Structures are given as C-alpha cells and as structure tokens.
C-alpha cells in the first residue's frame, strides 16, 4: 500500500504543470513578434503587422517606401528570427543531451570538435579554393565543405569506439584531440595567408544569424525537428544512462550504443547549424544549465526547457543587436548579456544538480 502511495505522489509531482516552460515559450514568441519590426530603418510595431498581413494576402506594395519595408521584414527579419530560434534550440538540446550522456557539466555540442572541423572546411574553401563536391557555386561549396568536415571528428569517435570499449569521457577526449589536429591545420593555413583573408575567416568564426535568408530556413528547421524528435524519443534511455553505465546495462540498455546514436544525431544537427551561422558559442553550454536549475536533469522536461531557453537567449541577443548595435556578432552579445545572468542564477540557486 505504502509503495502505491509513493508512486502516486511521484506521479503527481511529476505531472504537475511547470509554468516556467510556458513562460519561456511565451517570452520567445513575444520577442519574436517584437523583433519583426526591429531594423536599421524605423518601422512601427503595427506597421510591421500590416505589411506582413498584406504580404500574406498577396497585396503588392504600391510605393517605394512600402516595398523597402516589405523587403526588410519578409526577406530579412523573419528568416533571421526563425534562424535564431532554430540555432538556439538545436545547440541547447545538443548540449543538454551530451552533458547527461557524458556526465560532465562542461560538455557542449562543440566539444565533439564540430566547430573546428567546420572551420577547417570553411578555411579550405576560402583559402585554397577547394571544395569537396565540385560544380557548386562559391557559397554552397563553402557550406558543403564545412558540413562534411564538421562530421569528421564524430566519424573518428564512432570508428574508434567500434574497435575498443571507450568510456564516455574518452569519447569526448578523442573529439578534443581531433579538434586540436584541425585547429593546428587552421592555424597553419591562417598563419600563411594575408590579413584580409584572416579577417574574413574571423568574421565567420564569431558566428551570427544576420546573414540568414529563406533558403536556409528549411534546413535549419529540419535540424531542429530531427534533434528534438529523436532526443525526445530516447529521453527515458538517456535518463537511465545518466545514472551510470552499470545501472543502464542492468536495465537492458546498451549505453555505448545509445551514446553513439545520440552523438551522431547531435553532430548532424549541430553541423547543419554551424554551416549557416558559424560558431555561436555559449548557448550550448549555458542554456541547459539554466534549464537544469529550473526543471531538474530529467530529459522529459530538460529537452523542451533547454530548447525554449536556448531559443530565447539567441533571439533576445539578436534583437538587442538589431536595436542597439547592428554590426556586433550575436555570440558577443550573447556572452555579454547572458553570462552575468548565468552567474547570478548559479550563485542564487541552492539546488545542487551536479
């Protein structure tokens, strides 16, 4: 009887609504709506809605004034905001899942070496002008290069762990070792090129969502749906593996296989994001930690929570850039705005999640 009561109490506690996720999602929608009108030229808040409404109804703008505004909102602001949401949530989900599976609070999607691999692909394309798949125009060639190279570290991790039982930490360390090799090549290539090219590469390293157009949105959305759905499907398994490999094996889960599957999915999704936005740091590490402080470490809440917080963080940073400083990269504002908040949250919360 007593155990039944406990189960009831647990279920009740588990199923009680978590208002904070709702708050985060609402805030994301709010900032999304706000950011529609934010741009370098002055567009009124309601004017923006009228323009979108007109655009949906297919009413052609009659004068030059309206046409410019139509272009800015539809071709620039909306894809940019959507891209920010996708990038933020994919990175945050990836970080949350990796932190749980590797059992290390310092893990984020880039610890797998994805960013340096992508950077290497990009550097190869920019400096040497070589693209892996021929007959693409310059921009596409760079993106495809970055994507393919971004997957190499993960491929090496998977390859090595088929030969040998590799502990989760060792997987990450393999990723880091491969990252150092790529970084070394990057450094050598960058060292030998002219300053102009270096600053071009540097711009890409910082990461930004400002260059996104409608063409990239389907791929980014695909990445988001892929990672969200697959991680949500294996959420219970991730929770069990997070309790230790022995427990997982006892409960009939192969922890290494699960880890490999999750690694591959996370790196695919992150690689897609990195190709289009460059390396936006910080979200992948910090958003899951903020989410952990509010929802605990169980994936059922952690995955949607991190996704919402990650999206919110990138979106707010991008919004601030648009209204304050148009030339700043999003990663910088993200770190400036969110790291003090993060530190305050870490200090004030008494709950010990790690």
């Amino acid at each position, binding site marked *: 009887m007593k155990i039944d009561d406990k189960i009831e109490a647990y279920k009740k506690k588990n199923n009680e609504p978590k208002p904070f996720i709702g708050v985060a999602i609402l805030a994301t929608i709010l900032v999304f709506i706000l950011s529609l009108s934010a741009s370098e030229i002055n567009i009124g808040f309601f004017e923006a809605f009228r323009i979108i409404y007109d655009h949906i109804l297919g009413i052609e703008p009659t004068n030059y004034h309206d046409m410019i505004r139509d272009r800015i909102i539809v071709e620039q602001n909306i894809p940019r905001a959507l891209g920010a949401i996708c990038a933020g949530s994919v990175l945050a989900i990836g970080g949350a899942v990796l932190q749980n599976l590797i059992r290390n609070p310092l893990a984020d999607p880039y610890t797998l070496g994805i960013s340096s691999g992508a950077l290497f692909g990009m550097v190869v394309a920019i400096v040497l002008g070589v693209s892996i798949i021929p007959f693409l125009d310059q921009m596409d060639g760079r993106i495809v290069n970055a994507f393919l190279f971004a997957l190499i570290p993960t491929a090496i991790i998977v390859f090595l762990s088929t*030969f040998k039982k590799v502990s989760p930490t060792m997987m990450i360390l393999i990723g880091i070792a491969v990252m150092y090799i790529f970084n070394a090549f990057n450094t050598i290539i960058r060292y030998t090129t002219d300053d102009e090219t270096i600053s071009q590469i540097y711009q890409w390293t910082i990461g930004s969502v400002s260059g996104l157009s409608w063409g990239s949105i389907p791929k980014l959305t695909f990445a988001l749906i892929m990672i969200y759905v697959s991680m949500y499907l294996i959420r219970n398994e991730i929770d069990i593996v997070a309790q230790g490999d022995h427990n997982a094996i006892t409960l009939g889960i192969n922890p290494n296989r699960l880890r490999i599957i999750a690694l591959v999915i996370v790196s695919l999704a992150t690689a897609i994001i990195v190709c289009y936005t460059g390396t936006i740091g910080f979200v992948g590490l910090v958003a899951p930690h903020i989410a952990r402080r509010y929802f605990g470490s169980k994936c059922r809440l952690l995955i949607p929570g991190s996704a919402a917080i990650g999206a919110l963080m990138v979106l707010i940073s991008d919004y601030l850039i648009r209204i304050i400083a148009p030339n700043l990269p999003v990663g910088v504002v993200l770190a*400036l705005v969110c790291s003090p908040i993060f530190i305050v949250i870490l200090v004030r919360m008494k709950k010990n999640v790690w």
Partner: protein
Amino acid sequence: MDDEKFERMKAEYNSHVIRKIGFIILCIAFMVVMIAVSVNIGGYDLSFIEVYNTIINHIIGVVPEEYSKEWYDYQIVWNNRLPRILFAILSGVGLAVSGATMQSVMKNPLAEPYTTGVSAGACFGVAISMVIGVSILPSLNMGLEAFILALIPVCIIIIMSPKLNNSVATIILIGTALTYMFNAFSTLLLVTTDSETLAAIYKWQVGSFTNISWDRLTTIAIFVIIGTIVIEFLSHKLNIMTLGDNAAQSLGINVRRIRILCLLVMALMVACIVSYAGIIGFVGLICPHIIRLIIGSDNRFLIPAASAFGAAFLLFADSCAKWLSSLDMVPVGAICGLIGAPLFLFILMRNRREIW
C-alpha cells in the same frame, strides 16, 4: 592477514612505485636530450662544436672580443637560443602541472589551466593595450597588463566561492562563463579594429616562445618553480580530495581552503606564462591525460611526471617549429596539436586502464 601475503603486496606496491619513478626519470632524460639537441637548431647556422664551445666559454668566464665571430655566436646561443629553450621548458612545466592539478581539484577530465578564465583575461589585456593603446600603469609593457587582467577572473571566482554551495561544478561553470564574458569584451574591441591589428593579436593568441629575455625568464622561473613545489607538497591532500569532499573533510582536510590555494597558485603560474608566451593550448589538457594513461592518476607521481613530460613535449614541439621554419611561420601550438593528438589517440587505443 598473513605476513606472506602482506609482504607480497608490499613488494608489488614498491615495484609499482619504482616503475612510476622510472617513468619520471625517463621523461627527465628525454628533456635533457631535447635541450642538447635543441641548442643546435636555429636560423643561424652553427656547428655542434661551436655551440658547445660558446656555452663552455661562457661558463668558465672567457669573454669574447666584441663584434668578433665568437661574440656573435655568444649572442645567438646565450641570448637567443638558451632563453627560448628554458622558456619552453618552464611553460611546459607550468601548464602541464596546472592542467593535472585542475583536473584533480575540479574532478573533471575536461578541465584545463584556462578553465578559470586566465587566458580570456590575458587576451583582453592584450586587446586593450593593442587596440586602445592604454595601459593600466604607464611605462609598463604589454606583458604586465596581460598578467594583471589574467588574474581578474580567478579573483572573481575566489571572492564568490564562499557563496557557491561548495560545489566544484559550479566553480567550473562560473569560470567558463567568465571566459566567455572576457572573450566577448575582447571581441567588442576587435570588431572595430583594422585587419592589421587583428592579425597582430591573432599572432599573440597563437603563442610563441620568441622574444624572451633573461630577466623576464627569471620572473617566470620564480613563479613556476615555487608553484610546482607548492602543488607537489599538496599532492597527498589532492589524492584524498578525490574521494569526495565529505570523506576528505572527515579526514581532517580543509577542502575549500586547499581548493582556493590551488586555484590561486595555478592562476599565478599560468598568468605569468600566458602574458609572455600567448595562449598555448593542448599541453595543459592532453599532456596530463597522456601521463594518466601511462602511470595512473596518483597525484604524487602524476604532478612530477606531467611537469617533466610537459616540458619535454613542449620543447620538442618548439624545436620542430624552429626546425621547420626559422622565420617563426609555424606556431608551436599547432605543432603540439599535430604531434600530440595522434600520440594521445595511439596511447588511448593501446591502453587498458580505465582512468576516468
């Protein structure tokens, strides 16, 4: 337990210890050989005998005539090559020791000397002095500014640490957040500058051992040697701390105080190295792991072994860099990654020990 079994275990333990000490001696021997080889590598062509003649002459006090060939040899060997070699050794010792300690203290294999934000602070200092041209104290060089700013993140962590719920994960996360924040400050400065300054700062970031003089070397040597000795003295306590904070406390160790002492010592060592050499990655993170794979995670042996191996490895990488191009075209950090990462993967795949 019967005596015979006890004796056998004791003998086994002793043989383990001897093997570990043997490994440390091997690393030191490798380092000495590397010093001997590295003196002969450089842009200016000097024969083996000339190099050693110059060194011996200096030691026994023979002063060469000014502007003679011997005088030039003396300048190159004594004022260029030897400081560079010693600098590489000291940096290797400092970075590897701090890396090993950081991993032990933070109980996290991904921790490295820069986890507390030392590198980001130093980078910000260099960015300030190069972009704005302001220095905190006038008439001082860039190195000091980098040094002071490198210590700021650690100071913030230490000031905040009483409020931190006594959890190492929180300390690391705050360190990482501070790293991102200071990097963002640097980027704020860097996006506004021209590509020439950007390239100059990039070259500082990559790290190199050129441009070092004897008096700077003394400062670094004092910091690194004292720091290493302090940490080696603490290594017993670090071993106990790996049991967990509660166990360590009940064995009479003031966990928080030792953690802060370690953080402070590491920060001083690394800040000193970074402010002159730039941000040299890899050694601090991977070298301790290589040692852990070979001799295990006992801090008493890990720290001296890591220091000897780190020094030898960094010296080897720097010699390769010098040998590949005398014009400093190939940065030492890149060589570290190129040589060290495959080595690490190789050792990892050969090894059967579970270290983390």
